[in-house]
């Protein structure tokens, strides 16, 4: 099937197998390997991308379902090499260790803060229910998100 979509501001037109998962389309067809695969049951959030402004688990969506959409992956988050405040906050606050969950965490955070510019720790933790990190114990992720929120509010 032929699909057309915009990924990180670039229009992509491809002929894809109807069963192709969006995450494989992004990783294998477009070569954007910053989006990760951590599970096969929609549990971990490593594959989260932003589709039309909403976070989507790209392992749980077919490429054809993304037809006509606008997608941002981790590669599209920073602006001409300039880090987004969320990325900067994860860096400053040791919000990552192995980095495998990080793309998903960052994209999830961006939506979380869009919806709630001044979240409590509990609200942040609640917002991370769909993202698993095995390294950090989440504490510095929460701290990073608080720090990003503060920067973005000012």
């Amino acid at each position, binding site marked *: 099937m032929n699909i057309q979509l915009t990924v990180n501001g670039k229009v992509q037109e491809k002929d894809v197998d109807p069963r192709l998962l969006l995450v494989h389309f992004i990783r294998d067809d477009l070569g954007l*390997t910053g989006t990760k695969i951590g599970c096969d049951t929609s549990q971990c959030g490593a594959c989260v991308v932003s589709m039309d402004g909403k976070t989507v688990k790209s392992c749980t969506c077919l490429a054809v379902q993304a037809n006509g959409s606008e997608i941002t992956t981790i590669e599209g988050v920073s602006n001409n090499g300039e880090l987004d405040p969320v990325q900067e906050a994860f860096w400053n606050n040791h919000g990552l260790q192995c980095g495998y969950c990080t793309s998903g965490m960052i994209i999830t955070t961006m939506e979380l803060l869009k919806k709630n510019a001044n979240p409590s720790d509990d609200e942040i933790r609640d917002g991370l229910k769909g993202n698993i990190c095995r390294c950090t114990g989440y504490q510095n992720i929460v701290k990073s998100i608080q720090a990003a929120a503060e920067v973005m509010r000012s």
Partner: protein
Amino acid sequence: MTTRIFGSGIRRREDPRLITGGATYTDDVQLPGMLYAAILRSPHAHAKINSVDTSAAAAAPGVVAIYTGADTDGVLNPIPCAWVPPGADLVAVAHPSIAKDVARYQGDAVAVVVAEDRYQAEDALELINVDYSPLPAVTNPEAAMQPGAPQLHEDAPNNQAFHWVAEGGDTDVAFEAADVIVKDKIIQQRLIPNAMEPRSAVASWTRATGELTLWSTSQNPHICRFLASLVTGIGEHKIRVIATEVGGGFGSKIPMYADEMIASFCSMQLGLPVKWTATRSEGFLSTIHGRDHVEYVEMAATREGKITAIRTKIYAGMGAYLSTAGPGVPTILHGLIYSGAYDIGATKADVYGVFSNTTPVDAYRGAGRPEATFLVERLVDLLAVELGIDPVELRRKNLIPKFEDGHDVASGITYDSGDYEPLLNMVLGQADYQALRQEQTRLQESGHYMGIGVTCYAEICGLGPSQVAGAVGFGGGLWESAIVRFHPTGKVNVYSGISPHGQGEETTFAQIISDELGVDVDDVSIVHGDTSNTPMGWGTYGSRTTAVGAAAMVLAARKIKEKARLLAAHLLEAAEADVEYVDGHFTVKGSPDQTKSIQELATMANVAWNLPEGMEPGLEASAFYDPPNFVYPFGTHLAVVDVDADNGHIVIRRYIAGDDCGPQINPMIVEGQVHGGVVQGIGQALWEGAVYNDDGQLITGSMVDYALPRAHLLPNMEVLSTETPSPHNPLGVKGIGETGAIASTVTVYNAVIDALRPLGITSLEMPLTPEKVWRAIRQQQGS
């Protein structure tokens, strides 16, 4: 350069590539002409393989080749076990990469399909027709040793893989003389490590040169190369292993797995690169599991509360085959550390390693030491109740007093340095322990159940002296080496055989070298992970990377400084004795403008226009470091929990971790390691546990069924520390990667039991799920 960067929490240099999606993990590697492998795994825990019919699959679209055990048999050597504790009658059963006659656990590889893409490979798996005759299975290690249990290997009667006993002091005498004895049966449930990056391998065989390049999700690429050479028969000099970015390991990426060798085999057959990446569910079955002990434990003490002995009998599940380091975990890394933080006259571990129809078991964060710490601390709590002594006071009474250079414990090992009580006091102060106890009493009167758990631990890590490695049957050395090289512009590369995968050592090691050489931290880069450009090293596990790997770098840097001093004296036309080194500069005593920076000297050494007579060009050095002893971090952890008696729900109200890992290179990173370790340990206490049914089917085979810690279930932890240097390594550093998981499981467990004790509950099996707690409470109320 006047300030030391050692000790400062600078942000990590690893992060820019990780937060922008720019890092390359193994599954991100793309090679021209690359094919994809998918592995067919036995759905049975135990079955005779009568035949494998691949004809339909071979005809499926995109399929390039299919191989079975008949193809790999005799071509790939068995997957080796590399840790054979001596005197334990260990039966090294053959572990074929692909099972040919018998499948021995659900997940055992039976065939491999190579196709043009992942989807085609997966599709074809379904077309392979295997005729199995299912056999009875056994999954519990204690049950597997009983008469009549299904037998896994002909050469291992009663499924006994080994029997290892370590006794120090005379436990029989101590138990006979004891005023009090407390006992328990502990189930250290089987855990599934679940690093977030699934295992993956890309194998690329170059026929013309006979060279194999293997990208592998490994914590120890040099060991991987060493073992790959044994399995494939290709010389080590013709194998290159690359552990590019690795997404967490926690021990699960130490072993040599069949899968990497299968991918290599496929590439060698086809002459094309082959990628294999586990799906998560596949990882649940085929990546090692951890723990899996059935333990009978007891402690002897005097009426006054002096602990005199600990004795155990342990059935340690090994899974269907012996994984690379599997046998070392419940023995050396477990049975020698029963003294924990206490002065105990006699300890004895009596450990049976047992085969069962389950995924092989190997090192998982803490590896043996969480199990040891658990049983010691559980027994101390039982003893406190028995004697009516406050559990903290009982601990304090038995703590090993401060020592700076060596303390022998009963098992025969020598702790390096320790000062346990200040950290205990610090944690109690932070918690306001007395107030918590008062609150507990108050709450209990109103029917609220709060509990406090306190753990004192000492652990063994920084593996370790190679001579000891040899003596305890480890199939390799445990030293590290490093090459430190100044380039002509004065920039520095450090090449090391260690292989960090989330621990941030590109940053911390640059901090160390920056200080040692007096160059800016940004002028130093650490190179690791590729056997073709790093010196031999044994890898990252056992909290050894800094204590051993960084020590080697420091020694190399110090050699460089000696050479630079000679060159400086020559160029400054001064006597060597008159040249002083301060912060990266060599200066003639009393003449501050007669000076050369080490980076200038690097340039001069590299161009070699004017060297002292006989001096070789270049400014680099290599060094090997074989530690004289292990290191022994220690600490006190405290948890406060609230248990809702109506629904069994447990909330961790506070968690305080006090750890001493010696001087901290980067406190921010140390804290991160503590957080992660503590949460994995909490996972074991409250949520995680592999469950097999009677047929040996893994019931918890996905992230839906296996409960990993999630953000909303966890508290913010409070992290404290003291810094007691190790006397025997050049930096005084110990290790911090495992302490969290070593201490937190029992801390939370003891806190929950402390909360439930007024309800008559004194023991529960982990994980302490709400349902289990609720049922226990109902049962008590009913009785």
